[in-house]
Structures are given as structure tokens and as C-alpha cells.
């Protein structure tokens, strides 16, 4: 009787283990990074971790001119995503995989919702980064000025994103 009971427990555990290992990998999402209000930019990445690589990526970004009064009552007139890039670590440095390029210029004062660049796989360790570009016009001097968000780095390993640089030219 005891032997039968032990056999029953062992078989049950084996069945449970096989079911758990056969379940599909779950999607993960990086923490959203934005400017400090936020009113200009936000970005995050959704991905599925397949062990040695990530796939089913959705690189999400949204931007705005600084609030509902813009562009009429502020100097920021247009914005665009300047680049979204995929990287993989080769053991000694980050290696470029692909660039999704610039968007067209947008003129929404407030956030309207995320745009996404989807697809492709990246061998782990993997990184996706974003850079936004903003155009200001100063009517008193008649000049056009271009500035950027920081580069928003999203590591696809569960760690927090980082931001580097920023405010520069685009």
C-alpha cells in the first residue's frame, strides 16, 4: 500500500513538472521611462524571454510638446522619435543589430498613446534604446532650435532602465 502511495506521488509530481516546463514563456515589460513631469516623452519595451534570446518585441514610444496649451502657448512646435535601436552584448561590447529610424514630425500638445516598432529577435544580453528629438521656435529671435531627450536604455533582463546624455542637438 505504501509503495503504491509513493508511486502515485512520484507520478503526480512528474506530470506536474512536465506541464510546468511545457508552458509558454510569459511576456515581460521594462519599467517605463519618461521625462520628469512627464510631458515630453515616455518609452518601454515588451518582450518574451526565450532563454538565450528574446523575441515578440514591442518597442513602445510616445511623445508630446509639453501640455495641451502647446504648440500655441509654448515654444516647442514639433517632436519625433529620432532613433530606436536594438543591441546585443558580444562579451566585450554592445553590438548594433538594427535601427528603426526616424518618425515623421508630430504636433500633439499632450500624449495621445504609444507607437510601436514590433518584431525581430535579439540574442541575449539584449538592449533597446530610444532617442526623441524636439523642435522649438523662438519668435523673438526668429530661430529654430533642436534638442533631444536623454538616450533611454532598456535592458531586456529585468533590470531597471537607464538614461544618459540628453538635451543636446538632433
Amino acid at each position, binding site marked *: 500500500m505504501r509503495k503504491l502511495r509513493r508511486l502515485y506521488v512520484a507520478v503526480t509530481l512528474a506530470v506536474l513538472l512536465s506541464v510546468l516546463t511545457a508552458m509558454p514563456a510569459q511576456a515581460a515589460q521594462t519599467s*517605463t521611462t519618461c521625462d520628469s513631469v512627464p510631458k515630453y516623452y515616455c518609452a518601454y519595451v515588451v518582450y518574451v524571454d526565450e532563454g538565450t534570446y528574446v523575441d515578440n518585441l514591442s518597442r513602445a514610444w510616445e511623445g508630446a510638446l509639453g501640455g495641451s496649451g502647446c504648440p500655441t502657448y509654448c515654444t516647442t512646435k514639433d517632436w519625433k522619435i529620432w532613433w530606436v535601436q536594438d543591441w546585443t552584448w558580444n562579451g566585450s561590447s554592445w553590438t548594433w543589430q538594427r535601427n528603426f529610424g526616424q518618425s515623421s514630425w508630430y504636433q500633439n500638445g499632450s500624449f495621445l498613446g504609444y507607437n510601436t516598432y514590433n518584431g525581430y529577435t535579439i540574442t541575449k544580453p539584449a538592449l533597446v534604446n530610444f532617442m526623441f528629438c524636439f523642435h522649438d521656435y523662438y519668435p523673438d529671435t526668429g530661430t529654430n532650435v533642436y534638442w533631444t531627450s536623454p*538616450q533611454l536604455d532598456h535592458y531586456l533582463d529585468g533590470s531597471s532602465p537607464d538614461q544618459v*546624455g540628453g538635451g543636446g542637438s538632433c
Partner: protein
Amino acid sequence: MLVPRLTRLISVLAGLLGASALLCLSPAVAAARPTAVLSEPWPMFSMVYQDTAEAGVQGVTVSQTFQVQYADQRHFSSKVIAHSDARVGTGYSQTFDGDVATTTDPRTGVSHTKTYGPNEFGVPADWLVPRKTPALLLRSGATSSALRPGVDVARVSYGVGSHFVTEEVQYRSSEGIPLSYTQTVDGRVTRQVTVIQLQVGN
């Protein structure tokens, strides 16, 4: 005697006029320096500043220290010399050299460039825009006043969605170089930029 001299003088003058016309029409000369003719708002300077900002909806704070070398509106550079995230390190940089802006990330070795037209300008930073007065004074409701001898302060407040935002810039009264930038959201400081070192002139 006089006629040959006059003839020679007329020939020289005609040659000079012809050369001037050629220079005006030459596309190579016209394209050599496609910059707007604007007076320089700032003298040359070198600066070190620290920029600390909330970086996301989870309240993570990022702190960076930048070194800026500024010659004029079309010649400046900025480099990250310290960063709160050890993964980033230092060296991220951007330069504006005449008509081309270049951004370089030393971790990847990749540079992005953009060429500017005559009435287009890059800036060392979004808060460090070469102007005699801060750009925030162009917003409705902005005010400026003397803070202390040689330093003025400009402020503006406005709503963004359900939030109340205040921006403040302290700047040198003489030529407008900013010394600090503070952004508060609903009474909480969410971004603080402070000039640590400033050397104006050669």
C-alpha cells in the same frame, strides 16, 4: 600720356568689378558658410553642471555631471563626466561644429550626425539655450526679477494634465548664461540642474 594711364586704370577697375561679380555668383563661395547672421548672445565659457531628474513613473532618479565647452552658437561640446548608473559610465558626448551635430556613445562606438541649415541651431542642453534671456520667459505668465547682484530669476507655472508644474531658471544678468534650472511638479522637485563650475571668457 594721360590716355594710356586712363585706359590702364579703367582696365584694372573693370577687372576688379568682374572679380567681385564672380565671387557673388559663385556657388562654392555662397555655400562656404551657410550661417544666419545673428549676434552672439553669450561669450565663450567652460562649465561643469549636475543634472538630477526623476526618470520614470516609478520615481527612479538619474544624476549626471556634464562638462561643456562653448565657443559660440555653432561651436560647442558637452560630455558626461559622471553618472549615477555604473552601467553607463562616462564619455557620452555631443558636439556642434559649424553645421553638424554629432552624438557619440562610447559604449557602442556609434555616432549619430545631423547637418543644420542657416537658421537652425543645436544647443548644449535643453536648459542651456544660447539666448540673452531664458526661453521660458516666452511662455504666458512668466516673470523675471533680480535675485541678487548679477543674478536674475525667471519663473513660469502651468498645468500639464492634472499636474501643476513650475519651472525656474537663475541666470547671469549681464548676458543670460543660466546658473540653475529647477522643475517642480505638484510642489515636489523633479529635476534640478546646478552649475558647479563656470569660467567665462578665454
